[in-house]
């Protein structure tokens, strides 16, 4: 194996999110003279306005619901209260601790941390503007761009933090509105729907496509299960409709809707106290000076990269959300891409593979998937078959009282190699990693079927599914 050594190489990283700080730590560990520049808070979107805070809210409101419904489990309580100020305080504490961790990791690896806003000044240097100080110029041998993404606004719905909220605003809520209209039935929209519904907010979701979570790897049946779960919780879900405008008053928002499939539907208007627009994110590439350096972007501002994370300029790399579309814009993708970028920068290139990237959606039930669906396999000319199994056939699921959900596995008809897994059900986001192991390593249905799973666990749904798929079902 070639020895990667970065000795003497000046490597600069812009952006200290899960992509950037990973790249900085890895490069420094290999001996590079590494500098990490961050304009905002350490940890990027993931730590500050994404993964972590959204799951902190999820935990609190989910627990609030569980406590309210605990009589099923033989527990009686007085009417519990949800204190959002308390949730926010916990959130701030966890984020601060994690930021300290990132700072500590940088220090341990000898990464120079600069607080400031960076912009490319050419193909080998950047300028950093620091608040209250002289700006500085940094020359580099290698540059890794990891500036991430930000919430995208839609026409007619400018974010004001009062009536029209972005995901950033939602994560900062200290008091809950009575009702919300969530524009966008993607991952963020669906998660917010359940989080707020659990907290007692009246929720309506509007989605322009004909199903929620219309994402590669997640089939129509999966969307149906989530929509059914929404219906059970009285979360109103309007698909094939888009928002066209909003009239704001101190009473709230009146939003007009239009069908996207030509079939007129009622209602044509929705009233809600607040509107949450989570219809997409956009790359944070404005003002970065990419044009100055000649780094190619696509029409939407995403940096264009190859499988080694190289941009159109030699020695300049781009990873994570800013180079995301059409790849999955996920924190763990950014971290994996960081590894690839550093390897290439140090002379040991290895291409990034997107074959086994898991997705995890923290709805109730959870949804998670990896690989391809049967339909996608067919489109790729692969003969594949899908088998499914209801979560409620598993003993532990009955014990938990979380019956909803279905597991689906897609495998190559000839070889039995597992091509994809789609889970909707309890702990799906944890269970999916086993499926990633299978897809990444091209394991077969037989290999999964021969792997003993502990009892009683929800994970048994995987082995039972493998037994069913190989014609040796026990319980199914």
């Amino acid at each position, binding site marked *: 194996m070639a020895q990667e050594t970065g000795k003497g190489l000046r490597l600069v990283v812009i952006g200290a999110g899960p992509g950037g700080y990973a790249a900085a730590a890895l490069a420094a560990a290999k001996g590079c003279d590494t500098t990490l520049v961050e304009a905002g808070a350490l940890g990027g979107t993931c730590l500050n306005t994404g993964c972590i805070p959204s799951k902190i809210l999820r935990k609190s409101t989910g627990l609030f619901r569980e406590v309210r419904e605990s009589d099923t489990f033989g527990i009686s309580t007085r009417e519990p209260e949800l204190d959002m100020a308390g949730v926010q305080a916990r959130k701030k504490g966890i984020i601060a601790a994690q930021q300290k961790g990132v700072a500590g990791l940088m220090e341990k690896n000898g990464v120079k941390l600069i607080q400031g806003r960076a912009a490319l000044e050419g193909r080998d240097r950047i300028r950093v503007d620091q608040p209250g100080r002289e700006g500085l110029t940094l020359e580099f041998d290698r540059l890794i761009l990891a500036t991430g993404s930000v919430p995208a606004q839609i026409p007619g719905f400018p974010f004001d933090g009062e009536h029209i909220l972005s995901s950033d605003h939602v994560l900062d809520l200290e008091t809950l509105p009575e009702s919300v209209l969530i524009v966008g039935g993607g991952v963020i929209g669906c998660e917010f729907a359940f989080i707020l519904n659990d907290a007692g907010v009246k929720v309506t979701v509007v989605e322009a496509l004909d199903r929620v979570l219309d994402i590669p790897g997640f089939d129509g049946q999966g969307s149906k299960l989530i929509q*059914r779960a929404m219906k059970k919780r009285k979360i109103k879900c309007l698909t094939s409709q888009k928002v066209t405008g909003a009239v704001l008053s101190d009473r709230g928002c009146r939003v007009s809707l239009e069908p996207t499939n030509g079939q007129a539907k*009622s209602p044509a208007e929705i009233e809600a106290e607040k509107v949450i627009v989570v219809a997409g994110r956009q790359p944070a590439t404005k003002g970065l000076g990419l044009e100055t350096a000649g780094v190619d972007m696509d029409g939407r501002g995403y940096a264009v990269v190859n499988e080694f994370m190289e941009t159109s300029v030699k020695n300049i790399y781009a990873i994570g959300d800013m180079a995301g579309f059409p790849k999955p814009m996920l924190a763990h993708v950014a971290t994996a891409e960081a590894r690839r970028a550093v390897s290439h920068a140090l002379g040991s290139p290895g291409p990034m593979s997107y074959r086994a990237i898991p997705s995890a959606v923290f709805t109730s039930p959870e949804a998670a998937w990896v690989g391809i669906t049967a339909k996608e396999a067919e489109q790729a000319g692969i003969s594949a078959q899908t088998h499914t199994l*209801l979560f*409620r*056939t598993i003993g532990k699921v*009955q014990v938990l009282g979380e*019956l909803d959900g279905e597991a689906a596995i897609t495998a190559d008809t000839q070889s039995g190699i597992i091509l994809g897994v789609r889970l909707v059900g309890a702990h799906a986001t944890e269970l999916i990693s086993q499926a990633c192991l299978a897809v990444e390593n091209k394991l077969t249905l037989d290999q999964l079927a021969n792997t003993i799973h502990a009892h009683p666990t929800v994970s048994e749904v995987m082995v039972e599914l493998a037994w069913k798929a190989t014609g040796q079902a026990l319980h199914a």
Partner: protein
Amino acid sequence: EPGDSFSRGEEFGSVESVKAVSELFIPMGGEIVEVNTALESAPDLVNSSPFGEGWMLKLRAGEPDQFQDLLLSGQYLNMLEE
């Protein structure tokens, strides 16, 4: 929900048991006039009194001709025995 319209064969809901989930398909097209809310707290009425208190919805028929294609319970039981 009352006010919703369906075409024949469209899924209008689902029933869940301990072991299974089944989709419900509407036997004829029309508009829902009333839904039996008693089922929300006593879903087992569907088992104990499927032709009585376990009724699911009242439908205003869209195309009365579609009645011809339906079977009465006796006819259905005969069909099963064949």
